[in-house]
């Protein structure tokens, strides 16, 4: 394999990694921290994309600003939905799946009724990097950088700030957290808002790379769920490790044997991973950590 092709492989890996991580991270936060399986996660992404495209085309905002608007609107949307519906579903994991499925149906068709079957496209910015006979979209490499940035940002947020500490305490023991002065109700709301904002970010970032229509969000759902489950309980470590593993399998297999094998390999890897690591990659890491502690 010549160096250019290695670079191809690397770029394809980064590309897959970005998609998987950005698709999954919002879902992971909501699932990992609140025990809600949000089957409407794709439609949160949809809101981000629509808000971005509409404010870009109809209001004429610059793309970056439009993206920020997309994130903001998705956040607000998430907050409203949390207040109205989702908070009745805490500790009802399976019910949350059915209810959010309902939300998803309503949203897809609602968006179609309001804005039709498709929105005008937004061109992808930045152009491409060329190397030998090949080139790769600069924007998509930037997305990989953003994905890593998001993971680092979340790590800092949850591991290094008081907010993060309170959030983790709330997950572990809601009642005790409340008796320690944490407004858990608001904590859940904030967590849901962060998850929504990240979904909105994903929608905003990918709106310029894909055609935006009511089914836009559906494209992310499978990858998001698989990643969350393979990742396990810890949001940041789990998502990044699972994202890395699945992106490696997907991009490697796609590069070698084409898109179908790539897709199938990723799904099969997920099945095998769940079987071998019933608690996800995080569970496995936990065991390693204990083992290391022992040897010290």
């Amino acid at each position, binding site marked *: 394999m010549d160096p250019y092709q290695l670079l191809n492989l690397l770029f394809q890996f980064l590309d897959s990694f970005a998609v998987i991580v950005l698709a999954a991270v919002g879902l992971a936060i909501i699932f990992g921290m609140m025990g809600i399986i949000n089957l409407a996660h794709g439609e949160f992404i949809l809101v981000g994309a629509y808000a971005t495209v509409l404010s870009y085309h109809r209001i004429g905002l610059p793309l970056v600003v439009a993206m920020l608007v997309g994130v903001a609107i998705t956040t607000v949307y998430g907050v409203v939905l949390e207040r109205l519906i989702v908070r009745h579903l805490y500790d009802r994991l399976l019910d949350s799946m059915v209810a959010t*499925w309902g939300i998803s*149906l*309503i949203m897809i*068709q609602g968006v179609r009724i309001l804005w039709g079957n498709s929105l005008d496209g937004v061109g992808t910015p930045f152009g491409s990097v060329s190397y030998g006979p090949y080139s790769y979209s600069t924007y998509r490499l930037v997305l990989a950088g953003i994905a890593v940035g998001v993971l680092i940002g979340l790590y800092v947020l949850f591991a290094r700030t008081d907010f993060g500490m309170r959030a983790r305490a709330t997950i572990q023991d809601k009642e005790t957290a409340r008796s320690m002065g944490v407004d858990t109700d608001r904590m859940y709301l904030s967590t849901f808002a962060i998850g929504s904002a990240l979904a909105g970010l994903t929608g905003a970032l990918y709106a310029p790379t894909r055609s935006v229509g009511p089914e836009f969000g559906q494209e992310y759902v499978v990858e998001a769920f698989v990643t969350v*489950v393979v990742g396990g309980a810890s949001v940041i470590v789990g998502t990044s490790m699972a994202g890395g593993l699945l992106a490696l399998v997907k991009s490697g297999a796609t590069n070698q044997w084409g898109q179908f094998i790539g*897709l199938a390999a990723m799904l099969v890897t997920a099945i095998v991973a769940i079987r071998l690591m019933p608690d996800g990659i995080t569970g496995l890491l936990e065991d390693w950590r204990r083992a290391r502690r022992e040897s010290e």
Partner: protein
Amino acid sequence: MSADSALETITARVRSPFEGPNTTGNSNAFWTAFVLAVVGLFLVPAVSPGHVSDLTLFMSYAFLALSLCFIWGYCGILSFGQVAFFGVAGYTFGIVGINVGAETGALLGVVAALFVATLFAAALGYFMFYGGVRDVYVTIMTLVVALVLNTFMGQTAGSEWAIGDARLGGFNGMVGAPNRAIGTGSVAIDMTGDGLYYVVLALLIATYLGLRALVNSRFGYAMVATREDEDRTAMFGYNTKFIKLAVFTFGGTLAGLSGVLFMFWSPGGYINPDVFGITAAAMPVIWASIGGRTSLLGTTTAAVALQYLDQRLAASGSEYALVVIGALLLFVILVMPAGVAPYAERAVDWIRDGVSAKLRGDPESENENAPSNSEVTK
């Protein structure tokens, strides 16, 4: 008087295997209503021939609903991929049927389809339960299995994807399974129109009663105990992994039966990979959630009712059809968390209490309608 009580003893004896605290509807009133409903359903082809085809289809789906109710409601295993067994059975039926042909093909197809669906469920169940996969991970894993099948079957378009005479057909689907009649040699049962309707209805009633008997049996208690607390149940000497495997496997058989019956309904013996898709996969979960997952009858009714409603809304052509369905799901989950069945039961109790209050002075009838928990377990 004595003749009456003799009759009562007989009905009680007939009813007893189907009753117990694991099922709702353990009263004379329930069984009377049940018999009336069954009679009503048997009369549909005569009274309303226009509904036969749709009802046949929806009742075929009801087996899928029952399979999920059985494994989820009674054993706590939420499979989001019951359609995998439905679809595998459907495809197997088609492949065997097309290669063998005619009534014999259909017969062998049914046998093979149920066998393959059962085997597939057993293999997947063994893989999961003996590998320590639990709870929501079972849910996602089963969903991913369905999606893998969806992806895989979708690309089997080329002529190289043929098993004998049966072209898998990729995304466009496989056509031509012999589904007009089933039998062998000179004996064949017509499996079209009213004939199919009666076959499906009879099977559905038999399956429903069979499951009622099963969940109230020793094994049923073991299932429920496993659902409630797996560790505890193992400590009573139950092999809970095996119980889950057995339940999941039988659930696969039932889902497979659903797929086979669907193939008999399906015009031209047609099936395509949509049966493995995420929308199809969600439907059984929705039926069970709405109907009440611990109620066999509730889930069955929800399957038929929701499919009917869904179809009518689509037929209306309204752009709000999917919005209405989504809103309905939300409403039920938020307002009736355990599904409609427990509320329906409570409503019936309430009405009955009202009636028996009016009939007060007639202790016989009151007695008869009393909650029958104790009577049942005797």
